[in-house]
């Protein structure tokens, strides 16, 4: 006897939506509306008091966005999700739901440049400070925890260096300290890894990337695992104690495995308002429908590109956990059995100057500040996404001046390689210098 619940590919297409409740519309309707009629005063009061479910105002929730939220929760194995206007909005909302002034975060040093700036420069202005630890320094996470630490945060595969955090061990460290592990799983998507299976408690995504997949729409999401017991200690009073904003409600007592999401929506969306537009939610869902198919091609192309780059005379080094000599090769096989993702970092011989020439001379690969598009993308992080970092911070974050970040698309692999040949050829050409 086995459960007959729907599996990943089916959930990608169907989760969160029933046509017969929406005039038979097979596609998810786009509810392009700001607000929703109340049946009467009692109905309005019931919605505002959280007595019943439903929609009030699209800053708080929206039916189209709600389908996306349920779909991602289903795919991740989470209890609930809340979508946001971008991945950065998701990280901000998640942190502000957990933390108060005077709190502390332990974070991986190898994270997206925007995240690093939020943690390093912006959150201290609100009294929330962060200690950074290199992603492979598992013991370092333990040592960095303070009495006021409220979570460990990291990207499973660090951006851009592709260093892998030992998520199960770091999760144990977090749980032994009575705090949750928050993972930015943008690079993996739930197709490659479900962080809740490895001990994570909260997952955030920039849906803008592989989940949406087509480089058209900004979106983010927070997903709650539902296992973390907020009431095990007194570290999270805003979740466990009476909340004045809802007549003395205790989110943890009342909502248990969905308490974090309920608070993020009832307080965070209400007060900060980083809501997702229904049109963008719909666009993201179009991408999610083909997530499995695209991720297989992304990963297959990435592994071919790793082989190509490793053998190339113009390449100084390659970092991708599918390469047998990658320090995290074995761990990646365990945590990412379906594929190691399509982000590759490599160093070009000739340093920053050669890197600049390479990027300026590829034609098929797009030079832009995004990852996870169906198209192949390249960027020089030290002069773009991570340019706000000084030399020492760059080094601590695992970046170097010769590093090129490659997001492998799903074009024909021969065309990507041919394009790179043009780039490498240009990078090797001697630079013209005017005669004095």
């Amino acid at each position: 006897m086995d459960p007959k619940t729907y599996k990943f590919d089916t959930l990608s297409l169907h989760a969160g939506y029933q046509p017969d409740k929406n005039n038979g519309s097979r596609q998810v309707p786009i509810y392009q509306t700001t607000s929703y009629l109340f049946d009467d005063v009692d109905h309005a009061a019931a919605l505002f008091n959280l007595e019943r479910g439903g929609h009030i105002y699209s800053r708080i929730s929206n039916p189209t966005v709600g389908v996306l939220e349920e779909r991602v929760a289903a795919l991740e194995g989470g209890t609930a999700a809340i979508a946001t206007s971008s991945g950065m909005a998701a990280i901000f909302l998640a942190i502000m739901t957990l933390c108060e002034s005077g709190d502390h975060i332990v974070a991986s040093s190898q994270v997206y440049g925007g995240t690093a700036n939020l943690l390093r420069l912006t959150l201290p202005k609100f009294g929330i400070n962060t200690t950074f630890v290199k992603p492979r320094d598992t013991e370092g996470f333990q040592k960095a925890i303070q009495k006021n630490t409220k979570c460990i945060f990291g990207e499973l595969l660090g951006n851009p260096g592709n260093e892998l955090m030992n998520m199960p061990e770091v999760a144990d460290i977090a749980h032994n300290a009575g705090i949750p592990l928050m993972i930015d799983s943008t690079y993996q998507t739930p197709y490659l890894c479900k962080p809740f299976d490895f001990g994570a408690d909260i997952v955030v995504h920039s849906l803008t990337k592989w989940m949406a997949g087509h480089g058209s729409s900004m979106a983010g999401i927070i997903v709650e695992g539902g296992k973390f017991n907020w009431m095990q200690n007194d570290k999270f009073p805003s979740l466990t104690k009476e909340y004045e904003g809802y007549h003395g409600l205790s989110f943890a007592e009342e909502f248990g495995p969905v308490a974090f999401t309920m608070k993020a929506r009832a307080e965070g969306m209400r007060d900060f308002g980083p809501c997702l537009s229904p049109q963008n939610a719909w666009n993201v869902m179009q991408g999610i429908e083909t997530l499995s198919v695209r991720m297989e091609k992304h990963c297959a192309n990435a592994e071919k590109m790793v082989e190509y780059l490793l053998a190339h005379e113009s390449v100084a080094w390659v970092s991708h956990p599918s390469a047998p000599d990658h320090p995290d090769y074995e761990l990646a096989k365990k945590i990412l059995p379906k594929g190691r993702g399509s982000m590759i970092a490599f160093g070009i011989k000739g340093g920053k100057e050669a890197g600049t020439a390479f990027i300026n001379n590829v034609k098929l690969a797009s030079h832009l500040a995004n990852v996870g598009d169906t198209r192949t993308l390249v960027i020089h992080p030290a002069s773009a996404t991570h340019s706000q970092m000084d030399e020492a911070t760059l080094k601590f974050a695992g970046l170097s001046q010769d590093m090129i970040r490659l997001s492998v698309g799903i074009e024909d692999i021969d065309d990507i390689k041919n394009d790179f040949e043009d780039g490498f050829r240009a990078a090797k050409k001697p630079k013209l210098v005017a005669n004095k």
Partner: protein
Amino acid sequence: MKFKVNNEEVFASTGGRPFDKNKPLIIFIHGSGLTHMCWVLQTRYFAFHGYSVLALDLPGHGLSGGKSLTSVEKMADWINDVIDAVGFNQASLVGHSQGCLVAVECASRYPNKIQTLSLMGGAGAIPMNPELLALAENSDPKAVDLMMDFAHGPSGHFGGHPVPGLYHLNTGSMLVQSKEIKDTLGVDFRACENYSNGFEAAKKLDLPTLSILADKDRMCRLKDGQKLADHIKGSEVHVIKNCGHMMLLEEADQTLAILKKFILDKYPIT
């Protein structure tokens, strides 16, 4: 709120309003392995509309202390003890699934205390599939997966939770797994398997009774719920279409509307 019953700490949600001894009491009794949280889309309404609400965590479940009670009869007596412990001499009971067995048994044992019964996804007996029972008693998570499959209808399986962003199957799964499976679900399933007095208890009842049933219920099938209702004098029956066993969440608005009408009529605020 927390209080003591038989020297063990008990947790009950009061629906977001302070517990008030001057308002009529409604007690919500959850099903096997679950907790007070499955009632959140019913309890808060009544708490904000003139009733005192206790959505209980049965002993050993959720935030309550002690060990799970091993029979439906013991659970029925415990509900009576709860009413005494909070200083009331009467209450209305709302049960779901196993909670219906408990409510019916309690009302038959304490007819002077129980004012109305509201039964959701109930039956006169809930015999267990032997494989599912064994899995639960061995704390096998597959028991929870199977329970979530059987307990949900189309809304649960596809989604469409009344509260934006919540996903039925995984939320239910986490509720059940908040404690050791064998200590809650395993004990509860065994109590259901062993209980055989449902129809006899039902025949003794003489109080306003509501049955809310669902046509896609695979845990307590519609015909089994109807059979229980047929044994209760004057029982009112409502059938929710295209819905599974977890009607209190899958079709929370419909469930609440039926429950509101019944309770406001049969157990009004005086």
